[in-house]
């Protein structure tokens, strides 16, 4: 989905709140509840197998855009995780709100998703490819800034992973390799580019062979 989370290239945000090498990164967590975000996420995804991490990513993307932008990072993890426990029937929003002593807004409703296409011959390093010009309503890991763009394959993963547009909706998901595709930054951002290349890791199903 072309959601608010798909931030690459959006103008208007200010300086990154960091000076290099100014932090020891300890302690890892800054609030006493923050460790619960990932802990309860991995409880559901790894131990209980209630949902998968693609579904978690999509649950966060389904947050109302204003809620998404206003919430700190671990708050978004908590909302996404809670939404999935509720959608899967493990918990109810009512019991969460009762325990929280107030409103516990969850993600907006789930949609259908889509299955992976049929398997095709793999691409090779050096191949020129074009990202498909598709508009996916549900979860996808194709950032919109490369839609329809031409790039060059610099790596094919030796492992295959579930197609996220299906997995993110809890559907059976065929596995595919992903490709590190290098894009000339001027094709993405015109003369405003301050990067020589942007390399994006894309599932096979997002790519087509480019015309000569």
């Amino acid at each position, binding site marked *: 989905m072309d959601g608010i989370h798909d931030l690459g290239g959006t103008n208007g945000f200010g300086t990154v709140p*960091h000076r290099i090498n100014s932090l020891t990164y300890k302690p*890892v967590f800054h609030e006493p509840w923050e460790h619960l975000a990932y802990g*309860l996420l991995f409880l559901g995804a790894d131990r209980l197998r209630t949902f998968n991490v693609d579904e978690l990513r999509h649950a966060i993307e389904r947050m109302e855009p204003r809620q998404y932008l206003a919430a700190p990072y671990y708050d978004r993890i908590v*909302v996404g995780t809670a939404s999935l*426990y509720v959608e899967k029937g493990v918990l109810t929003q009512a019991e969460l709100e009762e325990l929280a002593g107030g409103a516990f807004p969850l993600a907006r409703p789930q949609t259908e998703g889509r299955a992976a296409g049929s398997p095709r011959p793999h691409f090779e390093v050096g191949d020129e490819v074009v990202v498909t010009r598709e508009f996916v309503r549900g979860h996808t890991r194709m950032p919109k800034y490369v839609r329809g763009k031409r790039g060059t394959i610099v790596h094919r993963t030796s492992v295959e992973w579930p197609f996220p547009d299906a997995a993110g909706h809890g559907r059976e998901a065929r596995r595919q390799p992903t490709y590190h595709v290098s894009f000339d930054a001027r094709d993405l951002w015109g003369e405003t580019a301050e990067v*020589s290349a*942007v390399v994006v890791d894309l599932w096979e199903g997002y790519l087509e062979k480019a015309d000569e």
Partner: protein
Amino acid sequence: MAHDSHPTAAPIARRAQALKDALDRKKLIPDGFIEDFTKLMEVDWDPANGARVVARAWVDPAYRELLLRDGTAACEQFGYTGPQGEYIVALENTPTLQNVIVCTLCSCTAWPVLGLPPDWYKSFEYRSRVVREARTVLREMGLDLPESVAIKVWDTTAETRFMVLPFRPAATEGWSEEKLASIVTKDVLIGVARPIVPT
């Protein structure tokens, strides 16, 4: 009019605790699960791990070759495996190329070798800007690269987890692996900084 971003939501500390308590009431949280996972996050996953990998690659050409060919295998030699570390690719900097890592869609990172991503890496500022105006962003953060250095940004949009292999500063000849590792910070492993030799 349209709703605000839920100004009436309970505070996040109470919501996080409520989620835990609700799962606890149903006896869904195994004893020690949260504590063990928290130790992983707070103690085991640490940028010092990535620093050790880099230092080894600087002193051992065969290891360097392995790291660039199969980052996952190279990290496994140190035992750096686990969630978000299943497929690691190292990106080799040169004096004329700076690799930079981002995740524009969420905040994926190689936890076992870099540690959890820092707040700034997860910020909307970094996610939105670095793929487009990296040179300005790096300058603002304190890394002023000459125009002769090209910047390549890697967007972590799938399951590959990247780490940057910086080039070894000239003034480190004869240093031990441990001393070399000490100049490889988390920021260096993400690619927004270069190793600095203390003067």
